[in-house]
């Protein structure tokens, strides 16, 4: 069981109704963590459209969920 802080941006934040939350999860990898939260909040975006960051740096979806880490889901960007 890992305790993680989650950051939501843009349409994910609107769908979740919050910018961040703390969750306990048994998801083995970041991709599984996203699927868990997708079911809970009804996110429209498939995992392969997103990137993921851990503690302020880009990470890989297959990385393990580390206890105490901050995980951010990055929807397709539209700056500029």
């Amino acid at each position, binding site marked *: 069981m890992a305790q993680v802080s989650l950051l939501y941006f843009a349409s994910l934040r609107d769908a979740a109704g919050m910018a961040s939350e703390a969750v306990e999860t048994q998801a083995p990898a970041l991709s599984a963590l996203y699927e868990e939260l997708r079911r809970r909040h009804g996110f429209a975006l498939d995992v392969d459209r997103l990137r993921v960051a851990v503690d302020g740096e880009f990470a890989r979806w297959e990385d393990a969920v580390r206890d105490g880490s901050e995980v951010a889901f990055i929807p*397709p960007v539209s700056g*500029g």
Partner: protein
Amino acid sequence: MSDASAKRFAISGDPIDAAALRARLLHDQAGAFAAFEGWVRNHNEGRPVGGLHYEAYTALAEAEGERIVREALERSGALDACCVHRVGELAIGDMAVWVGVSAAHRGVAFDTCRWIIDEVKSRVPIWKHERYLDGQSDWLHPGRAE
């Protein structure tokens, strides 16, 4: 040429001061300066736009933007470059992003400026939320099936 410790990318909640940024890029060896500005347009893909706001994951956006500008300088041999992206509420005509590059010659200045804005648009975690004149509004997530 360029100070390795200087910050060259920033996310700003305040209006972008292009003249101050340009002044940072002056070099006696520079014969060419290219700049790009992104302005808020009154339409997008045929829909009239009333205004918008940008949101960023600031810590990661600034780290990734910094990597882009440094990579651009290493690849191109340009003398210096910097970029600032605005967040918050913007009106039509406001400057959303500024990129400037100084170089010995104009080819490098243009190519490097273009490369930076292309990479910023594809890699930096910033999101645009548009409000349309028909009352609707939406986050832009390029590539989404509508």
